[in-house]
């Protein structure tokens, strides 16, 4: 009996917690102490059990192979004929697996998750008991879903987690559902994700059709042994469709729109779901299915390009936002872009690495912002802040550290992972990967630009928030206060990790020709179906350093500009001037390229219009026509006039009406006096005889 045999317990603990808080605590309105104790224990157990399992597995099992635990058969769809006429049973089992990748995710998800639970205790303390319970049950539920997602051993189970986290984010974004826009944001998130899932589902179907299995291991083997590229086409389709799913979940162009709105949720939620864990699920999935992308240059390139473009695109928007959380949100989008950029160059490990480090510093940033907002009594507009560093020092320091990290200043975590990505991209350009060299060069350039902007807007944030003088008005200033320890402790831990996490996990050995010093490289390698992913010396040592230098320089430049703009001229004349110089650009950025508006005007409005139209159509024409046919079977063609009329003005009551008409017409035969009847008979008889002769003679 070992921990990793019961790996499925890791998701189950939070589930129990969720159930308790949802069904018991929320119903009975138990006091907060009970609620958060349960929640903490639940997520804590998940954390401990998860780590225990990983460690035990690491030391006892062969880590190059996934360790699969099957719980029970879930869906059994019978024998089916698939690609090449093979007949295979559709048997999807609820099974979980432990391999380097899920271990990595498991490791940091449980950990960060626990921290954020802890943080929430402080942050949400002012909520009413029932809502408090509701909040924690959602949070636990999220943990359950996320852990299912990362431990699931086949696509459907992954999909369960995938949708589960979607649901939780929906619920948590809409946590303050009395506020119309919060609920709306939640709905938006869910539906946009659904659009992604649409691709995901199709990918699953294609996968099953071609490979007859949905187990990751099975798929991996199939692709690994696909030496004469039978499945190349399949890989492209599946890869692209999966990526559509990833776009939705990980907020890439063009489906990123939901993430900024998602900030409507409580800040810890933003930190946990919309920065650290859920949004990286897409990256995880792509990395998990790397074997498809490896087999399909098209898919790989697409991922890379979308990633790169998103990185810059989001960064540009981030430059001018004034809502502290919005800035972070766009920065998240942009960082996710980097991860996909990495994946797009085949550097899946780099991508995952960045996921982890990003979880550290971005989690820290969000929690920090939460602390700030908490301190300023719910204020989120950075123009109304300033000079907070003397009121909330811990928050300030941690925030600063995380900022430096994300800006990519060595040797912090951000630098290590982001530099790895840029290096890989450049390398891809040099090695003319899949013959798309120039494109990759271009992507590398985009990456740099993004880095510069990141540095700029992050420091802009820091300066505006913590330096200068408080702009929020006198009496607001009095209430500003540092947050309780439950909130600051996680901050400190995460800040610490942002500093050292990078070097520990992935020491950039390549800079010193020291292969295999990067733990994460070694650890994750077996999962990846990659050729020459690590240790490739396409890039000479000098060039490596050159790249490092460039990226650092760029980052510093960004910081410098930010300093010029927002630190050393108190009334921000320069940025204003700039904004006036390029009003259009400024407006464009400030309004986020009007993407939301465009979407609303086209897709949303379009759909609703269409639905209205069809509804009209249904109530008038279809009903009319069907009734019409119903009655035309009566052969009473002479009421067609009425029929048209009815269709036009859409009387639903057509049947009865037209029967009426027919009936009245018929009744006219009944003229009322005997001779008339006699004539009816005579003519009828004549008619019958006529018919008779026509047919008989």
């Amino acid at each position, binding site marked *: 009996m070992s921990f990793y045999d019961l790996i499925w317990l890791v998701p189950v603990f939070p589930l129990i917690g969720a159930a308790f808080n949802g069904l018991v605590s929320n119903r009975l309105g138990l006091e907060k102490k009970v609620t958060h104790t349960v929640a903490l224990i639940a997520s804590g157990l998940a954390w401990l059990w998860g780590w225990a399992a990983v460690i035990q597995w690491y030391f006892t099992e062969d880590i190059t192979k996934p360790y699969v635990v099957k719980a029970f058969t879930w869906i059994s769809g019978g024998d089916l004929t698939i690609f090449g006429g093979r007949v295979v049973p559709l048997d999807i089992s609820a099974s979980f697996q432990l391999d380097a990748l899920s271990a990595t995710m498991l490791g940091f998800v449980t950990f960060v998750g626990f921290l954020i639970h802890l943080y929430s205790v402080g942050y949400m303390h002012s909520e009413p008991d029932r809502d408090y319970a509701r909040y924690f049950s959602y949070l636990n539920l999220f943990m359950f879903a996320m852990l299912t997602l990362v431990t699931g051993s086949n696509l459907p189970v992954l999909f369960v987690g995938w949708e589960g986290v979607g649901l939780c984010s929906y619920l948590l974004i809409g946590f303050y559902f009395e506020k119309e826009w919060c609920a709306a944001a939640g709905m938006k998130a869910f539906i946009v994700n659904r659009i992604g899932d649409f691709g995901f589902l199709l990918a699953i179907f294609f996968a099953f059709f071609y490979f007859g299995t949905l187990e990751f291991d099975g798929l991996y083997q199939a692709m690994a042994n696909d030496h004469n590229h039978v499945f190349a086409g399949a890989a492209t389709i599946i890869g692209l469709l999966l990526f559509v799913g990833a776009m939705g979940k990980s907020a890439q162009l063009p489906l990123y729109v939901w993430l900024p709105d998602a900030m409507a949720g409580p800040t810890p939620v933003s930190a946990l779901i919309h920065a650290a864990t859920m949004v990286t699920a897409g990256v995880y999935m792509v990395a998990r299915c790397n074997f498809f992308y490896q087999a399909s240059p098209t898919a790989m390139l697409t991922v890379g390009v979308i990633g790169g473009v998103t990185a810059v695109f989001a960064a540009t928007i981030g430059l001018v936002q004034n809502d502290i959380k919005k800035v972070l949100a766009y920065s998240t989008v942009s960082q996710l872009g980097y991860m996909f950029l990495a994946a797009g160059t085949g550097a899946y490990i780099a991508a995952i690495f960045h996921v982890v480090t990003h979880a550290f510093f971005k989690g820290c940033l969000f929690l920090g912002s939460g602390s700030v907002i908490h301190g300023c009594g719910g204020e989120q507009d950075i123009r109304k802040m300033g000079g907070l560093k003397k009121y909330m020092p811990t928050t300030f320091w941690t925030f600063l550290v995380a900022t430096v990290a994300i800006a990519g200043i060595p040797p912090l975590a951000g630098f290590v992972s982001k530099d790895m990505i840029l290096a890989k991209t450049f390398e891809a350009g040099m090695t003319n990967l899949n013959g798309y060299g120039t494109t990759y060069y271009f992507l590398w350039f985009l990456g740099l630009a993004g880095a510069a902007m990141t540095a700029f807007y992050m420091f802009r944030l820091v300066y505006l928030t913590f330096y200068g003088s408080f702009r929020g008005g006198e009496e607001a200033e009095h209430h500003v206060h540092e947050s309780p320890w439950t909130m600051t402790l996680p901050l400190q831990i995460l800040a610490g990790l942002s500093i050292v996490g990078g070097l520990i996990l992935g020491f950039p050995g390549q800079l010193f020709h020291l292969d295999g010093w990067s733990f994460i490289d070694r650890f994750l390698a077996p999962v990846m179906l990659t050729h020459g992913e690590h240790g490739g010396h396409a890039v000479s040592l000098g060039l490596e350093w050159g790249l490092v230098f460039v990226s650092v320089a760029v980052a510093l430049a960004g910081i410098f500009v930010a300093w010029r703009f927002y630190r050393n001229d108190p009334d921000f004349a320069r940025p204003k001037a700039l904004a006036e110089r390029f009003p259009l650009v400024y407006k464009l950025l400030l309004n986020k390229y009007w993407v939301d508006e465009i979407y609303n005007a086209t897709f949303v409005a379009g759909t609703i219009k269409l639905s209205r139209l069809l509804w009209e159509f249904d109530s008038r024409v279809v009903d009319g026509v069907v009734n019409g046919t119903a009655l035309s079977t*009566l052969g009473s063609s002479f009421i067609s006039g009425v029929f048209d009329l009815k269709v036009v003005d859409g009387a639903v009551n057509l049947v009865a009406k037209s029967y009426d008409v027919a009936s009245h017409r018929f009744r006219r035969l009944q003229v009322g006096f005997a001779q008339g009847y*006699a004539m009816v008979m005579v003519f009828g008889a004549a008619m*019958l005889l006529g018919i008779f002769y026509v047919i008989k003679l």
Partner: protein
Amino acid sequence: MTMTLDQFIPFLPEIFLATAGFVVLLLGVSMRRRGVRPLSLLGVAALAVTGLLVWLFARPVDGPVSILGDMLVVDSLAVFFKLLMLAAAAMAILLSAGYLERSGYGAGEYVSLILFATVGMFVMASGANLASLYVGLELMALSVYVLVGYFKLEVKSNEGAVKYFVLGAASSAVLLYGMSLIYGALGTLDLAAIRATLTAVPTSNSMLVLGMVLVGFGMLFKVAAVPFHVWTPDAYEGAPTPVTAFISVAPKAAAFAMFMRIFLGAFAPAVDQWRIIMWVAAAATLIYGNIAALTQNNVKRMLAYSSIAHAGYALMGIVAANAMGAWALLMYMVVYAFMNLGAFGFVILLESKGYAGEEIGDYAGLSRRHPAAALGMLIFMLALAGIPPTAGFMGKLYLFAAAVEGGYLVLTVIAVVMSAVSLYYYFRIVVQMYLRDGEEDGAAPAKLLRDRWTEVVIVVCVIATLVIGVFPAPLVGWAQSAASALGMM
């Protein structure tokens, strides 16, 4: 060729019935207003005894026998119809009693006329010769004319009688003309002989065929098929309600009996000559009857149209002209008799503002005041619409089956669609009974009269409708053996 008395034994029922008619008539003259119930009872008793006689003497022991110069034939078909007619007549009399009392018309002539009509129908049911069939027909017809106009002080009654009479006379002239042509073409009036000749020399002699067609017109008139239905609504609406009940069942059955004797019996070999006419008539009847009924607000009139429609269903059996068609038709006659008499029973019982409950509105909210009655009426409406598990469904099922077997799918489709339509007007009554409360529109709701005899009839009909609906097997068996007398393949 000489007659011996024993030859008359199978004719005993008719003789007895006619005599009974006399007696009732005479008694009726003596006891005018008071005598309704006793006379009715007497009539019913006579009918019962007749039934007994039929069973005892007029039953084919082994195979059909034709008697008295081949004028009549004694076979299972005749027995079937005779018993049906007796039942219908008896029920009609029972339905009438209370009604006559309230109306103040004498019962003597009334009852005796019903008895005489029954005699006529007997002859139609067992006639083996065009001559005897014709006189039987006329006997029935004349009696019915009188019955329809019986309430001579009622404008409608008289008018109905007038129209029925004029058109009836004309149609019987047409019928006769057809007969004369057949006689001219084949030189005989004897059904068996006609059949034999037609089988021997399959002819398409147009004079003969024309004769058949004209005879067909006459029959179509009697069964109220389009385009010869025109008399039906007025006669039904005008006639005293019990008479309507009676003529919508018994004479119709008799007409179909004669129809079968002539067309499925004598003319069977020439079926391809006349079938097309029947097909068209059937289709037209189905469509017309059902659709015209949709907007009737007078229940009697609505039922009149519905009976036209039902004639259409029955005609499907003639069109199919196969064994199944024959016995399905027989079965349908029985089923129809029960459900229709039952329905009319309610029309008779329901009285509003001193008038019979003829307007559809009179049924509003019946289910609240008289749940049992409403339930009964519901069952009859369902049966008429042919919804299982009522007899109506079984009846239709076999007719449709027969038509399909004959390959008349188009006709069948028309029929089934129409039976769906028919539901609409039958349910107009149901809607009134269940879905409306009589109170809402202020009008004084019709009240249900208490009349034991009528209630008995209704109960019998309800039971029959349901039992046949669930266990049709025995009746089917009987009908089959009866139809076998026609000697169809």
